[in-house]
Each structure stands twice: as structure tokens, then as C-alpha cells.
């Protein structure tokens, strides 16, 4: 009986650890997206206050390529949309991973109790 519970606990613990790892990875991704979002928002703000005939360049590899202001604005807006979508996707993933992790944690706690009980019973008999 006790062995059985211990086995179950080990597998739950492994799943818990995997979920925790996944969670940490996702949070890191979220932070990166957040940074990109802040950067692009700042760029968009800057482009929005530029004069229409201002020169804008994009750094592609080692060279600066001239780009139309409107095109640059559009590109940044598109990127912001994409980043926002990604943020939402990651947020959903984070909450689902979190709930899975909590589920494993609760199971571990339950198994721990069972283990203690069965040990107590063994001592009694």
C-alpha cells in the first residue's frame, strides 16, 4: 500500500516539476514580449510625432535602409498587433500551466496524507 502511494507520488512530483519548468519558461517569454512591446510603443510614439517628410531608416543587418515614414509606421503597428496577440496567447498558457501545476501540488499533498495514514495504521497493527 505504502509503496503504491509512493510510486504515485513520485510520478505526480515529476509532473509538478515539469509544469514548474514550463511555467518559468513561459514567464521568461512573457517578460521578453513585454520588453518588445514597450520598445515598439516608444518607437511608434516617436514616429507619430515626426514630420511627414522626415527620413526614417531601418537597420537590416549592418546597413541602414531608407524607409517611408508611413511604411515604418505601418510596420511598427503591425508588430505591435502581433506582440499583443502573442502576449494574450502566453497569458492563457501561463494560467493553464499554473492551474495544472496547482492540481499536481494538491494531489501530492493528498498522497502525502494517505501515506502518513497508512504508516500510522501499520504501526498500530
Amino acid at each position, binding site marked *: 500500500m505504502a509503496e503504491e502511494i509512493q510510486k504515485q507520488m513520485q510520478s505526480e512530483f515529476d509532473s509538478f516539476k515539469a509544469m514548474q519548468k514550463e511555467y518559468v519558461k513561459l514567464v521568461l517569454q512573457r517578460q521578453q514580449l513585454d520588453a518588445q512591446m514597450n520598445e*515598439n510603443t516608444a518607437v511608434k510614439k516617436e*514616429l507619430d510625432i515626426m514630420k511627414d517628410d*522626415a*527620413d526614417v531608416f*531601418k537597420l537590416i543587418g549592418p546597413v541602414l535602409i531608407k524607409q517611408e515614414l508611413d511604411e515604418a509606421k505601418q510596420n511598427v503597428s503591425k508588430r505591435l498587433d502581433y506582440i499583443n496577440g502573442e502576449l494574450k496567447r502566453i497569458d492563457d498558457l501561463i494560467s493553464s500551466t499554473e492551474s495544472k501545476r496547482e492540481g499536481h501540488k494538491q494531489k501530492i499533498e493528498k498522497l502525502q496524507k494517505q501515506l502518513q495514514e497508512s504508516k500510522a495504521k501499520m504501526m498500530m497493527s
Partner: protein
Amino acid sequence: MEEKKIQLDFQTYQEIENLTAVKDQSEKDLKTLQSSMEYLDIAQKKLTGSQHVLEKVTPEMNGKEILVPLTGSMYVYGKIADSDNVLIDVGAAYYVQKDVNSAIDYFKRKSIFVNEQMMKVEKYIVTAETKQRETEMKLQEIFENKLSVKQ
């Protein structure tokens, strides 16, 4: 040597565990905040540095000879072709051309922005510090009370 066993009731044990977790968390928060502060400080210095350099860029510089660094220790001669406009890296691989005055204005604005962020972070640092101190005091209290009673 006689071993003194300290009996802790379950509640106290849990309280200690919780408080330690809170303390660890606020310590972690504090570290993150402090490193953010350092990054902001570096950004601030870069921005004000660029601003000060721009204040020295005047129309009289046109056509003047300068040394252009190719590497950290090697230079070639060059002449300033345009002292009115500069290219600014605004982030996300975008560069915009601005005249010197609007460039100075850009760096001033950015610098103010960074300053605001620093003030926000500073506030969080103070909160995290107080929380850390409070939890530490609570822990100390528990240890002193429980341990002195049992001995």
C-alpha cells in the same frame, strides 16, 4: 551533550514556513528592482551623454576635419559633411533623421521618461524593503517567543 528538542506546534511551523517564503520572495523582488534601477541609471547616463555631445555640435563644425574611429584604437581622417542633422536610434532597429535641436529635445524627453520610471521603481524598492524588514521582525518574534518558552 544533552540535545534539546524544541517542540513546535503545527501552526507555528506553518507560520514560520509562510513567513520565510514571503521573506524570500521580497528579497528576490528587491534584487530584480535593484537591477532594473541599475539598467535605468545606465540608460539615463547614455541619454544625457548624447544630449551633451549634441550641444557641442554647431554649424561652425561644417567641413572640419575629424578622426573617425574604425576600431577602438584605429582612426581615419574624415570631414564633417552635415553638422545640422543626426541619425538617432529610436529602438526596434529604426533610425530617424533629426536636426540637432529636435535631437536634443528627443534626448531630453527620453531622459525625463527614464527619470519617471526610476521614481516608480524607487517606490517599489521602498515597499519591498519595508515588507522584508517587517517579515524579518515577525520571524524574530516567533523564534524568541517559542524558543524561550520551551527551554
